[in-house]
């Protein structure tokens, strides 16, 4: 397109090929918006030099401490004049989408209209934290844009050492594997920490993610400090006639190779009459057989969630998976949902008080040890929290009898509750 101000021979090469081209979109939008003209110029400059040229700064809206990601160009001549003056400022607004990223076209169109009035028109759906990223606004327009979005019913997401925008899967809205109300948990958690989301005052970021089953489509174990995953504790529901129909259609070898022998805990056995035998006491609720035989198998009826704490990406000690801190929390009524919230509050409070600056929850737990963390947030130990017990003998066990007594007492209480 000849409308654009700067030549972009390298970016132009990304306009060919079958996948949708962000360059074509940028150019189209730049025809209406000079800022993106400058952005195209700067991006081409980056492609030529193989160097990034944005720097941060301080831009915000009244009342909040975060939510805007400021970007100023670093490409300036000796007198301080930007090479691409249209893109001198190119700030991003993080906007929280509806839980599960469901949209009516009306909502998307309204966002587009507001964004067209105040910003560049470029947006990323979505950023890795789960925000709508409205990319390209000047500091002068940030407040007006936010006011209009906010009056409409949208809010800014978190950034920096704050509770962040959460994520939940498609869940009960369109998935038969859903073991909980993902959106309800997601909104219950994030919307109760809005002060910590809008005003960064924690040691470092804190993320909530909710997946309705162990397939963990939200990557919660790896990408969140507080991962909530739907599960069940009774028996997998089996429709044996559907099992037989599956075997009939796919064959015994296929069923044995792809379902029975793929069970990680060896809990499955195909009977001579092509029905399925399941050892539910050994089953680890991995979801594989249920995924493959979607018609025949379903999660059990006694459903709830598992909570894992401390997942994070690489910075700075390397990646960490969250580890189990609540093996099973039943979700029968609102008081159970409140219990998730109480736990989250305990975790955030303990994190705020005990983590070092720029330390994530997982790093803090590793530093102090899981038993200290559990004690700090008022949770009891459970064998589901470990892969195997310690194998190094250097440990003080002088309070063994008291600790064993706690276990027996809990076992007794559990059996009394059950009866």
């Amino acid at each position, binding site marked *: 397109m000849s409308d654009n101000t700067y030549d972009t021979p390298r970016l132009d090469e990304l306009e060919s090929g*079958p996948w*949708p*081209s962000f360059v074509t979109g940028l150019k189209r939008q730049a025809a209406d918006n000079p800022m993106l003209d400058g952005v195209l110029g700067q991006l081409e400059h980056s492609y030529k030099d193989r160097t990034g040229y944005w720097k941060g700064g301080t831009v915000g809206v009244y009342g909040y401490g975060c939510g805007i990601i400021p*970007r100023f160009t670093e490409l300036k001549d000796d007198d301080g004049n930007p090479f691409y003056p249209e893109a001198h400022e190119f700030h991003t607004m993080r906007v929280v989408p*509806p839980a599960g990223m469901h949209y009516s076209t009306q909502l998307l169109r309204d966002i587009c209209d507001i964004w067209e009035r105040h910003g560049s028109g470029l947006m990323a759906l979505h950023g890795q934290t789960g925000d709508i990223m409205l990319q390209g606004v000047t500091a002068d327009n940030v*407040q007006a844009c*936010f006011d209009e979005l906010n009056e409409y019913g949208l809010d800014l997401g978190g950034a920096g050492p704050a509770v962040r925008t959460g994520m939940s899967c498609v869940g009960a809205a369109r*998935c038969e594997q859903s073991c909980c109300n993902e959106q309800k948990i997601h909104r219950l958690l994030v919307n109760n920490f809005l002060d910590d989301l809008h005003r960064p005052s924690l040691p470092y970021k804190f993320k909530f993610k909710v997946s309705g089953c162990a397939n963990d489509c939200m990557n919660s174990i790896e990408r969140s400090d507080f991962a909530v995953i739907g599960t069940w504790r009774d028996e997998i529901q089996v429709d044996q006639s559907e099992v037989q129909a599956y075997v009939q259609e796919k064959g015994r070898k296929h069923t044995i190779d792809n379902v029975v022998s793929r069970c990680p805990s060896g809990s499955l056995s195909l009977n001579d009459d092509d029905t399925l035998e399941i050892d539910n006491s050994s089953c680890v609720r991995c979801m594989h057989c249920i995924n493959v035989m979607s018609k025949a198998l379903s999660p059990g009826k006694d459903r709830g969630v598992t909570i894992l704490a401390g997942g994070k990406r690489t910075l700075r000690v390397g990646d960490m998976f969250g580890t189990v801190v609540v093996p099973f929390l039943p979700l029968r009524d609102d008081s159970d949902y409140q219990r998730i919230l109480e736990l989250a509050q305990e975790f955030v409070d303990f994190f705020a008080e005990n983590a070092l600056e720029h330390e994530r929850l997982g790093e803090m737990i590793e530093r102090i040890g899981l038993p200290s963390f559990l004690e700090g947030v008022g949770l009891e130990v459970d064998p589901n929290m470990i892969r195997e017990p310690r194998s190094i003998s250097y440990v003080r066990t002088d309070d063994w009898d008291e600790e064993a007594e706690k276990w027996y007492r809990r076992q007794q209480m559990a059996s009394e509750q059950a009866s």
Partner: protein
Amino acid sequence: MAEATEKPRSPIESGTPDPFPHLHPTLRRNFGLWRYHDRPQPGVLHHVGETGEEVWTVRVGTQRQMDLATVRKLCDIADAHADGYMRFTIRSTVEITVDEERKVQPLMDALREAGFPVGGTGPAVKMISHTQGWLHCDIPATDASGVVKALMDELYDEFTQENMPNKVHITTSCCQINCGGQGDIAVNIQHTKPPKIQHDLVGDQCERPSVVARCPVAAIRPAMVNGKPTLEVDETKCIACGACYPPCPPMQINDPEHSRLAIWVGGSHSNARSMPSFHKMVVAGLPNNPPRWPEVAEHVKKILYAYRDNARDYERVGEWIDRVGWRRFFELTGLPFTKHHIENWDGSRYKLNTSAHLRF
């Protein structure tokens, strides 16, 4: 900006919006009542509810970084064919749901006509999850959207068809923080040289103690250069991770020549069959070569097709390698095995072979 005398408006702290008004009515009616699903064809999911109601969902790839015309085009299509609703997946694909089977083909036709690739379901290569890169990030060593566009052009048929043993998640990251996430195949920046320090700027721009604290190997210490307070790096200890660069921009880690690309394999978030796993580095030193990064595409395809041709059904990349062993992986892909593949970070001993289990 509001005038100083004007009372500023206080924000309404509304947080995460309720998705219910944005659900297709059939999804609303069947919330929590879905019974099973199947995939009638690549790119289409078919869900059946306990109520007997059914929905068909068409999934399409996007460029993630979208202009208004693209978003409005998606809205036009959803209005014309799907009652005006859609959702986005975590990997920036769009799912548009219809309540009658006869509406599927016209919807797919309209999406294809508008340039959106239909696919990304079942055992296919999914849309690449990625970061911001040179377009918007303040610390990137490479681009994100461009790498993804170039790779997805090459892998287009693997997105629109279901020819893999299981799903393949590819991720890209433009610094070593790796915001792109774990992947069956991950393309990440790997710096190879210590930061270049502009000593005259460090004192003014950086909070030195917190930069010292940020270094994972304690290689940074306070120093004076030309009478000005600054920081210095013990280059023999430095692992070139770049953790010091975000809090201290004068410690430039990005280098057009020496920031290279590495490919990692075997990461998985799912708990299905095996536990979640981190991806493992298999090749490094690939040039940062815009606009199409051909060396990256060549290596990704080499690994992807070795997986396609050798893994069994339902094995993810990591599970396939677990079964056949790393020796066979390097043999099948033709990639070199080097000392850099051997972990020497915390807990490295647990990644060595402490057995007589060997493959030849």
